């Protein structure tokens, strides 16, 4: 095995770009399918399904492994991309006085670094809005349900991971999610973090918010999200097929089909992502 070729050659740096990029494309599909649940299920059912899904995603060991691989891929893709960009800038120390790059290459292909940087900024914002709150915010509320009594007063209940409901007054919360019996001082269940309500109140009109302050800037969040998805679309438009070319996967028999698939993927996936905050904004 040739060590220098695999670790430091120009082509190897591009393989790592391709491999991490294609892995992140797979991640996008998984992330999208999971998140679409938020608009395909409505009401209490929607809240339960999504919070159960969020619990599964944060507790399953295999998913945890995949998530570490995803964080690594994002960082590696970004760092490798920065290194490549600086090397590429250095390869032409004096710029042309007059150049017509639009005559020979597509616009997204020439702006991959800028598009990628914009996506990185989006990822940081996106993770601090949801992932960060979900993982680190001590006040992240748990999944609650209002039980209407015959005298039309309400009783607030926590949903537990074994499917039962516990009255809010009876328990206190320990370690963010553990439901502790106040009298016996014993753990009697585990609650679901209410990621559903966090998301809905972030993008929506605050009708169903449970324990979240209303987001005055929901429209801004939606606009930024949709813009970021447009950026992602341009990045994928070039990146998806470019990854295959870099890995040497090119054959006249399959190239046109692969190229078509890449174009559809790069439009459809960001579009489907963008539909989520738009739907929440318009309906919730």
């Amino acid at each position, binding site marked *: 095995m040739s060590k220098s070729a695999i670790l430091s050659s*120009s082509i190897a740096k591009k393989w790592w770009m391709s491999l991490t990029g294609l892995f992140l494309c797979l991640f996008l599909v998984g992330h999208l399918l999971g998140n679409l649940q938020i608009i395909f299920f409505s009401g209490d059912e929607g809240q339960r399904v999504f919070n159960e899904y969020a619990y599964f995603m944060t507790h399953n060991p295999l998913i945890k492994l995949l998530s570490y691989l995803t964080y690594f891929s994002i960082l590696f893709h970004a760092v490798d991309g920065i290194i490549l960009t600086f*090397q590429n800038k250095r390869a032409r120390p004096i710029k*042309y006085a007059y150049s017509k790059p639009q005559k020979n290459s597509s616009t997204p292909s020439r702006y991959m670094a800028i598009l990628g940087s914009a996506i990185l900024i989006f990822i940081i914002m996106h993770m601090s809005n949801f992932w960060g709150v979900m993982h680190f915010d001590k006040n992240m509320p748990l999944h609650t349900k209002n039980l209407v009594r015959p005298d039309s007063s309400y009783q607030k209940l926590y949903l537990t991971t074994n499917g039962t409901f516990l009255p809010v007054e009876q328990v206190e919360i320990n370690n963010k999610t553990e439901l502790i019996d106040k009298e016996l001082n014993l753990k009697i269940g585990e609650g679901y973090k209410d990621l559903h309500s966090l998301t809905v109140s972030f993008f929506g009109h605050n009708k169903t918010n449970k324990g979240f302050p209303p987001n005055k800037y929901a429209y801004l969040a939606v606009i930024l999200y949709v813009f970021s998805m447009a950026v992602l679309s341009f990045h994928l438009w070039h990146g998806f097929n470019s990854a295959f070319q870099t890995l040497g996967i090119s054959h006249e028999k399959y190239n046109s089909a692969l190229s078509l698939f890449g174009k559809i993927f790069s439009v459809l996936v960001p579009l489907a992502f963008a539909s989520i905050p738009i739907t929440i904004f318009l309906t919730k």
Partner: protein
Amino acid sequence: MKLKLKVWRQKNRKEKGKLETYSLDNVSEHMSFLEMMDVLNEQLINDGVEPVAFDHDCREGICGMCSMYINGQPHGPDRGVTTCQLHMRKFNDGDTIYIEPFRAKGFPIVKDLVVDRGAFDRIQRAGGFISVNTSGNTQDANLTPVPKKDADKAFDAATCIGCGACVASCKNASAMLFVSAKVSQYSLLPQGKVEAKRRVLNMVEQMDKEGFGNCTNTGACHVECPKEISLENIARMNREFLKASITSEK
């Protein structure tokens, strides 16, 4: 036709260069671009100005010597031609034409529009050959059968004249199209298989040493290539390089 030319003038490798403006009258539309440059130089000599240095040799599109970045494109606005094959009818009366050298760290400027493309020779020397017996008992060329399709593809790759338009057009000044064409022209043929691994590893190593950028698959090289070398060659080289770097003993 009347033209305004903005030509890059640079005394030598070290001194700073700049664009100088010259006016040229009575340019025939039937002239090639290089003939127009000859007329410009004659005018400059008559005016007591040092003529513009530019590369040229065969003037029939096969040697790869003529370079020049003309109006924002290597070899000018025409497709699939070198500068010597570019005719002045592609321009209009009264046009301003920018003429710059090919710019890349791997192609240092020698003077004016002349750049040193020795990097390509060094890459070629690193592995762009096959070792055969030439001492009189050479094998008959038809003794080793080659499928027609492979022979055609190898020939297409071999039409690369090493002019450097790929590097000049690439936003990263990457030499991948040139190197991949040179790798492909051998790797597709049985005679080239013997040294295939060593060839691709050494040529890519030399390419990186010369300071060319990384390929980002913009495809500009293929569009600007006077011989229209296919991007398929780059994919083939990526494949060969992967195979060689995993299985080679070095």
